[in-house]
């Protein structure tokens, strides 16, 4: 046990900073800082810049195109990206599909899909949830019926983040109805440009919308796009959920917002300063818990149910930070000029420039305790898998 802040890490941090300074356009940086809505190009252009540098897929093995970073370097990269107000990449390709293909895909599938993920040439979305299958994901009903070399897919996916931007969808479908609900699920990689795929954006009450309903009507998907065995998709799905929960729990995002809060805080309300400090301390804990639980174990690629703990605390702290930032606006939490969050708005803001974004983010971040397996479900996992209840 030792704290190890190697010179190497310091040099790495400088390298990351220099890269971001050089490649991130000022207007995109300003939009992220003020919480304005980003376009697909804002996000994807940035992803491509990161890809060019070879940094898109930090948790892939070096042999597969990963940069070969230590856990603390991965951490530094994410933290510096947030602090510099770089857009968060669409995570589904690099963080989910990639690891699943590396673990379960055929050589041919890897050759077909991994290069696009590494280069950010293809953007992915995750088609798991359905209207009647949310927390009870295994009950999903989107049907895939075999027809020669193809599956014919029919069904509805919902809450699919970035489906409107995506080229491909990583979907869970039902290939068999006869046995236990976990059996009979398969993973299909679906080209979103195939006939019969319809994407309908869904508005959120925060007005920061990026999720969709995806409808599949007689979509013909080649059998060669099935990952792993037919009916064994649940194994891949669970593997992927582990990876979804093992992100860095939003530490970088929280750090960036807390820095902003500390800047805004004029110390006139000691109680408010105390709450900022309290959240800062909780964030320190989250960082060390991450390093202790995930980074340390990564060597043997075992992401256990501890990941649920990080998801719970990470999202709770994110929500606290968003709430503080909104509260810091006082009365300026009220004005909400929706156009001010979109492209091309150049009238002066009402109140501080981050006010409208702060309120929208507070509302929107209620999602964090719902998605990726709700926090109730995460607690169920710990109760069962860790505590044996």
């Amino acid at each position: 046990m030792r704290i190890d802040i190697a010179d190497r890490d310091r040099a790495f941090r400088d390298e990351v900073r220099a890269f971001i300074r050089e490649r991130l356009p000022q207007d995109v940086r300003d939009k992220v800082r003020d919480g304005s809505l980003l376009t697909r190009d804002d996000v994807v252009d940035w992803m491509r810049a990161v890809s060019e540098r070879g940094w898109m897929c930090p948790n892939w093995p070096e042999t597969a195109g990963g940069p070969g970073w230590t856990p603390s370097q991965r951490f530094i990269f994410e933290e510096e990206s947030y602090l510099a107000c770089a857009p968060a990449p669409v995570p589904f390709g690099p963080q989910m599909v990639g690891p699943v293909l590396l673990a379960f895909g055929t050589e041919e599938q890897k050759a077909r899909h991994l290069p696009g993920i590494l280069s950010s040439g293809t953007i992915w979305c995750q088609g798991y949830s359905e209207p009647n299958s949310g927390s009870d994901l295994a009950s999903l009903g989107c049907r895939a019926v075999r027809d020669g070399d193809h599956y014919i897919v029919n069904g509805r996916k919902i809450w699919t983040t970035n489906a409107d931007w995506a080229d491909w969808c990583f979907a869970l479908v039902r290939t068999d109805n006869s046995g236990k609900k976990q059996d009979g699920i398969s993973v299909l990689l679906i080209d979103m440009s195939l006939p019969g795929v319809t994407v309908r954006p869904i508005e959120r009450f925060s007005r920061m919308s990026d999720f969709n309903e995806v409808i599949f009507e007689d979509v013909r998907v080649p059998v060669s796009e099935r990952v792993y065995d037919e009916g064994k998709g649940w194994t891949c799905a669970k593997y992927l959920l582990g990876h979804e929960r093992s992100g860095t729990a939003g530490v970088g995002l929280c750090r960036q917002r807390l820095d902003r809060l500390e800047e805004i805080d004029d110390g006139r309300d000691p109680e408010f300063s105390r709450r900022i400090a309290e959240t800062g301390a909780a964030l320190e804990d989250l960082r060390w818990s991450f390093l202790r639980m995930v980074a340390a174990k990564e060597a043997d690629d075992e992401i256990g149910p501890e990941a649920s703990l990080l998801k719970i605390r990470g999202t709770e702290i994110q929500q606290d930070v968003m709430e503080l930032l909104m509260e810091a606006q006082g009365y300026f939490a009220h004005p909400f000029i929706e156009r001010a969050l979109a492209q091309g708005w150049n009238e002066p803001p009402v109140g501080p420039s981050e006010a409208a974004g702060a309120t929208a983010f507070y509302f929107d971040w209620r999602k964090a305790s719902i998605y990726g397996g709700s926090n109730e479900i995460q607690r169920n996992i710990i109760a069962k898998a860790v505590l044996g209840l």
Partner: protein
Amino acid sequence: MDFDYSEDQQLLHESVQRFVRENYSFEARRQLVATEQGWSDAHWAQFAELGWLGIPFPEEHGGLGMSGVETMVVMEAIGNGLVAEPYLSTVVMGGGAVAAAGSDEQKAEILPAVAEGKCKLAFAFAERQARYNLQDVEMRAEAANGGYRLSGMKSVVFGAPTADRFVVSARTAGGSRDADGITLFLVDKEAAGLSVRGYPTADGLRAGELTLDGTPGDVLGEVDGGLPAVEEVVDRAIAAVSAEAVGLMGTLNDMTLEYLKTREQFGQPIGRFQVLQHRMVDMFIAHEEAKSMAMMAAMRIDEEDADARKKAMSAAKVQIGKSARFVGQQSIQLHGGIGMTDEYAAGHYFKRLTMIDRSFGDNDYHLRRYAAL
């Protein structure tokens, strides 16, 4: 002690509830707040006809001479239906300021017009640097030719875009955070040098930024001694939004409970999961606690002793804030993905509850005021 409505209060309750049922389906509300004005003149005319716009004003000035309890009855219904008309800004705040500080002549001129629906008011008291501090006033008023001219800015003035007249706090003496030296003024919307930048608020209502530049204003109440009236009006607003929040939480809890009983996952209604049962119980408790404080606030808002009134309103606001936050956040959580959507009502109730918490002093502010009194 009597917590039951009188016969008249019961009739009022039924009539405002009927209005909400008949006019404020969620879809109708959504369409209404998306219009340019954001609320309906026809509804306003109906409010006038039914006497609701004159509830707190004395009978000799065209009002019904009723107490804080009747205002509570109306505000709770406003919360139940997420009603968008500027009742709070016109009747409770603007009208409250004229009733509290105005001369007989001013009351006679303004209050009947408000009650008849012909005059809408807004109370401009907040400033950018002030946060929730009511005596942090930088707007200047200079004596000129027997009158006053006002210069400065007011922020987040509820109901500003449609107000005919504003009640504006300004400094006639002293430094920017002094308690003395604040005076209230009536300012006409057409007055020279006044500009209003209107906008929607996060809860779908309307507010605005006011800029005054040598704008003429008529003194309302005592010169240099306006702070007590400002405090009284803001306390009236607190009592009113406490009742509104109770209405919002009532509807939101009903909606969430219904969802727990009907949404199925893992082959059973999600309301069978004990963790959700207990959450819902805590939401029920939070609503009941808020109800008690809203009733207390309604019954004590007309109290003579200003310090006792202030302490009571601070206690109410703290509880309302806590309950609103918990019920709002958890109602979204228990709905899962559907709760995050714009087409589902829960998020809109949550937004209004959140904005109530962000108005008239947050918990930190009211805990400090409570401790200091």
